[in-house]
C-alpha cells in the first residue's frame, strides 16, 4: 500500500487548505470527516464540524481537490469522551475543556488509530495552527504556529511521541491569514471559516441547558459563602457557575467578588476577592510531556493557563501522579482547565488543574 496521508476535514477553510498544501507537496492525500451527531451534539450547532452540513462542506472541498473522501462515524466516542466529560465536569464544579478532550480522545486517539491501524495510512494531518518538527536527537517536537495570533498549540499539549511521529499540521507553517486565503483561492475552496477552536462547538444555544438536561442535580440551589463560611447569598446551581467568574453577590458590601471554589457535595459556591482567589501554587493531574518524559524533576517554564493566555513565569515540580505548578506571581486558573508548559515556541507538555487541591 502506498504512503497515504489522511487529512481530517471539518468543512472549514483551514483543514481544506491543509489538504491542498499536502497535495501541492505531491502527497497521496485521503480526506476523512468525522460525523459526531448524534451523541449529544446539536444537529444544527452552527460551529460544529461534526454535523451533516459540515460533512457536506468537507465533501465539496475534497471534490474540489480531487481526493478520496470518507465520512466516518465517531459520534459514540465523541459523546463519551467530549460531551459526557463536559457535562460531568460542570456537574462536579470544574471548568471543562472540550477542545482538549476532543484532540486527546477523538482526533489524535480514535481517529489516528483508525487511520494507521485500520486504513494503513502513514500519517494524519489536521487544520490546526501548530507545528511539528524533528529535533536533532531524533524526537519530534511540538511547536507554536508561525502565526502566533492563530496558534492552537495550547489544545495539543497532550500529544506524545507516538502521536507526533504520525501527525502533520501543514497550515502551522503559514505566516498569516492572507496566505491561507491565497491558497484557498488557488484551489477554488470556499473561504468561510469555522469558528475558532475553544468554542463549545457542539451546542447550538446555551451549554447550561445541556448540563441541566443531563445532570439536573447540578442545578440544585445552594449557599454562596465567603472563605470564612459566612453565607452571603444563594445560587441557582453550580452547573451554571465557573470558577473565576464575577459573582452577583457582595453588591451590598461594595466588594467585587469572584467564584473561588465550587463544592458539589453540598452544592456550595465559595466566593472571594481578587486577592483571595488567586494563588501561586496549583496541583495538576493527567500530566503529559511531548517528549514522553519531563525535562527534569523540576524545571522552569512559561506556563499558559488558558487558550491564547499570556505565558507566565513558573516552575514545575514533577510529583507522583501529577505535578506542582509554582507561579512567580499569583494567578487564577479553574479546576479542569489545562495548564501548558512552553519553552519559547516549544510545547513541553501540560496537565489539568486538580479540583480541591491546595486551597
Amino acid at each position, binding site marked *: *500500500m502506498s504512503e497515504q496521508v489522511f487529512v481530517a476535514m471539518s468543512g472549514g477553510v483551514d483543514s481544506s487548505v491543509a489538504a491542498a498544501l499536502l497535495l501541492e507537496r505531491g502527497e497521496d492525500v*485521503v480526506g476523512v470527516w468525522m460525523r459526531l451527531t448524534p451523541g449529544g451534539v446539536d444537529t444544527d450547532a452552527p460551529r460544529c464540524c461534526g454535523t451533516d452540513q459540515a460533512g457536506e462542506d468537507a465533501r465539496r472541498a475534497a471534490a474540489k481537490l480531487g481526493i*478520496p473522501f470518507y465520512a466516518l*462515524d465517531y459520534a459514540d466516542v465523541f459523546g463519551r469522551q467530549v460531551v459526557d466529560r463536559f457535562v460531568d465536569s460542570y456537574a462536579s464544579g470544574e471548568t471543562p475543556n472540550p477542545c482538549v478532550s476532543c484532540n486527546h480522545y477523538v482526533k489524535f486517539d480514535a481517529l489516528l488509530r483508525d487511520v494507521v*491501524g*485500520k486504513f494503513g495510512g502513514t500519517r494524519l494531518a489536521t487544520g490546526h495552527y501548530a507545528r511539528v518538527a524533528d529535533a536533532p536527537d531524533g524526537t519530534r517536537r511540538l511547536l507554536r504556529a508561525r502565526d502566533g495570533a492563530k496558534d492552537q498549540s495550547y489544545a495539543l499539549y497532550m500529544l506524545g511521541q507516538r502521536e507526533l511521529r504520525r501527525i502533520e499540521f501543514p497550515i502551522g507553517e503559514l505566516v498569516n491569514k492572507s496566505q491561507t486565503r491565497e491558497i484557498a483561492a488557488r484551489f477554488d475552496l470556499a473561504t468561510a471559516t469555522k469558528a475558532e477552536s475553544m468554542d463549545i462547538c457542539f451546542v447550538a444555544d446555551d451549554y447550561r441547558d445541556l448540563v441541566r438536561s443531563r445532570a439536573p442535580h447540578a442545578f440544585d440551589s445552594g449557599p454562596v459563602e465567603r472563605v470564612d463560611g459566612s453565607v452571603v447569598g444563594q445560587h441557582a446551581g453550580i452547573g451554571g457557575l465557573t470558577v473565576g467568574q464575577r459573582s452577583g453577590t457582595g453588591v451590598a458590601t461594595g466588594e467585587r467578588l469572584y467564584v473561588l471554589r465550587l463544592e458539589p457535595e453540598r452544592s456550595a459556591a465559595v466566593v472571594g476577592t481578587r486577592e483571595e482567589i488567586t494563588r501561586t501554587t496549583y496541583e495538576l493531574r493527567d500530566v503529559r510531556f511531548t517528549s514522553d518524559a519531563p525535562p527534569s524533576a523540576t524545571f522552569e517554564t512559561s506556563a499558559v493557563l488558558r487558550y491564547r493566555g499570556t505565558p507566565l513565569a513558573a516552575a514545575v515540580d514533577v510529583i507522583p501522579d501529577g505535578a506542582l505548578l509554582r507561579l512567580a506571581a499569583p494567578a487564577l486558573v479553574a479546576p479542569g482547565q489545562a495548564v501548558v508548559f512552553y519553552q519559547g515556541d516549544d510545547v513541553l507538555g501540560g496537565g489539568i488543574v486538580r479540583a480541591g487541591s491546595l486551597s
Partner: protein
Amino acid sequence: MRRIYLDHAATTPVDPLVAEAMLRVLTDVPGNASSIYAEGQAARALVDRAREQVAAAIGATPAEIVFTSGGTEADNLAIRGALKAGRDSRDGLVTVATEHHAVLDTARDLAEHAHVRLRVLGVDAVGRVSAEAVAAAIDDRTSVVSVMHANNEIGTLQPIAEIGAICRERGVNFHSDAVQSVGALDFDVRQIPVDLVSLNAHKFYGPKGVGALYVRRGTRLATIQTGGGQEKGRRTGTENVAGIVGLGIALRIAAERRVTEGGHQARLRDRIIDGVIAHVPDAVLTGHRTDRLPNNASFCFPGTQGESLIVALDLAGFAASSGSACTSGDTEPSHVLLALGLERHIAQGSLRITVGRATTDADVDALLAALPPIVARLREASAVSV
C-alpha cells in the same frame, strides 16, 4: 490502481447498447409522449415498445406495466395504492422484518398516519419467512401482503409462489418487491401468483431513475399522486422516455443473457463464499447458502465494523458494501441482519459482495487475496479501540 467493482446490488453499470439507445432518444426524440402530433407519437411509440419489452420479460401483458421513477416509487404505489383502492373494511397490511426500507418505512408510515393495521413478520436465521406465518397473519380485513422476492442485503429468496397462492386463496393483494431479482432470475407472473411486482432498471444494467410496477389485470390500485393522468392515471407525470426506453432494452438483454449470466455469476459467488469461509477466521455467511441471488455473497466478520471494511477495501481498489447502499454512512447494524437474530456486535461487521456481468475469476482471486489481511488488520486495530 485497477478498480474492481463488486457492488452490483447497489447499482449496475449501464449496458453500452442501453446507453446508445437512450442517447438517441435524448437527441432525436424531442416530443412529449402525450402530445397528439408527430413528435409526440414518436415518443409514445418508444414508450409502447418498452412496455411490450418489459411485459414480455416477465410474462405479463403491456397494459399491466406502469412505469415509475424507480423501485421506491413502485413499492409506494403498490402498497399505498392498493390500500387506498381497497374497501374500507380492508385496512390490514402484512409484511416482513427484512424488507427494504421502501416497503418497511412505507408500512410504518401508513400504520402511524393512516390507521393501517400493520403486522411485521419475523424470519428464520437465514432470512426466510414461512408461508404458514403469512397465512396465520392474514385475517378477513387484510388488504395487502408485501414480501420481497430476493433480499437486497443477504440475497435470500422468499417462498413467494407459496405465499402468493395463500394470498390468492384468501382474496388478498400480494405485492412483491422484486427489484433485486428481476433481470437476474426467471420471474414469470404466469407462474407466480403475484398481483403487484416492483422492478428497477438500474439493477439490471439500465439507467437510474426509472422503474416499473406490474399490476395484474383486475387488481384495484388507486393513484398516489395527482396530475396530468399519464400511465392511465395510475402514475401521473410526463413519461421519462429515454429512461423507459433504457429500461425496456436493459430488461430484454438481461432476459436473453439470464441463463448464461446466472451460471457464471453463481460460480463466482460460490468461489467467494467458499474462499472467504476458508480463509477468514470466524467469517459468518449471512443468508441462505444456496437459495439466494446468484450474485450475492454476504458475510459478517466479528470484531470489525462494516464502515471500516468498506473504506479499507476501497483504498485497496475494491468497491463493496456493508449492506444496503441506501443506509451507507449509518453505523447502526442493518435491520436485516438483526432480524436474522445476529447479535449487534456481529451484525456491525457486515460485508456484501455482489458480482456482475463483467466480474472475472481474476477479480475474485484478487478479492480473496486482499480480504483476509484487511479483516485481520481491522480486528487487531479494533481490539485496542476505546
